């Protein structure tokens, strides 16, 4: 890696910045969040389909931001950032998923209905 050592502005981390790529990330994420907001406030879909749709919007918006803004790709300069993120995603999902699973099973077996509460969903 022969980066311009003398001038930090010639460093690939600086030179990889791109207006069009940042704009693409912004537009895609904004449109997906707009779509999710319209769907939720309009309540046009049945609840489960609505949940799946907004989950899809969140996933695509996050991928767009990670790719277009954070430069996570397989280029030589960024590959280790990508590897670290790929290792991170299972930790993130397992932390949330297993915690949620354990407590949902616990609630199923232990939680009595209390008068005056809204129903379990």
């Amino acid at each position, binding site marked *: 890696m022969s980066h311009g050592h003398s001038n930090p502005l010639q460093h690939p981390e600086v030179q990889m910045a791109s*207006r069009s790529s*940042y704009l693409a990330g*912004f537009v895609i994420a904004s449109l997906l*969040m*707009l779509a999710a907001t319209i769907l939720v406030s309009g309540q046009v879909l049945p609840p489960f389909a609505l949940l799946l749709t907004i989950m899809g919007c969140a996933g695509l918006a996050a991928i767009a931001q990670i790719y277009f803004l954070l430069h996570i790709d397989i280029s030589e300069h960024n590959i280790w950032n990508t590897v670290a993120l790929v290792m991170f995603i299972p930790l993130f999902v397992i*932390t949330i998923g297993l915690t949620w699973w354990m407590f949902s099973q616990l609630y199923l077996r232990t939680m009595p209905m209390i008068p005056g509460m809204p129903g379990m969903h």
Partner: protein
Amino acid sequence: MSSAHEKPVDPDQVVLWSDDYEGHDVISTRTFGFWMYILSDGMLFATLFAAYGVLSYSHSYYTGPTPAQFVAPWYTFIQTMALFLSVLAYGFSMAAMKTGSKAGVINGIVASMVLGAVFIGLDIHDVLRMISMGVTPEVSGGLSAFYALTQVHAAHIFVGLIWMLVMLYQILKKGFTEDVVGRLISLRMFWQFQAVMWVFIYVFVYLWGYMS
């Protein structure tokens, strides 16, 4: 080998490595290190998402208000746009840095700060509105988890704004040195990552809470 014996090495004078080694890439090293920090920050959010996930059942709110009663999706959508635009402005600032344009970088960061401050202002206004409705963290476990997650994110934005202020001073004072450029890139990743986390908070806490 024999010459080394002729002249004894003085431990106070010897230079073991060059501090200007050509292959030592300061910006890349620091950027990767900061990316590690960002991912561990992501694990902090994972624990808060997990806490919110297990405390967002209807019994978690006991008989108190649920997000369906106090979340205003369009209000929070405006907050979302303020944050996304702030991240875009910071990105444009970094694009201006490619050509060494100090004015372009400073304008971008100032725009990013203003939009970030709009996000914080809307958040504070929203919290005050909820408090006036009696929606406070101590009402139920569900509300504690809601406030913890959303306000930890707001605290990140606040720290980012302070950091931007510091960077504006350093750009004016020191110019684009290796240190300053490296910090600007770390701040770029930090700021963009807050937008990624906000996508999950907005969809899974605000929107999902509103529809439940």
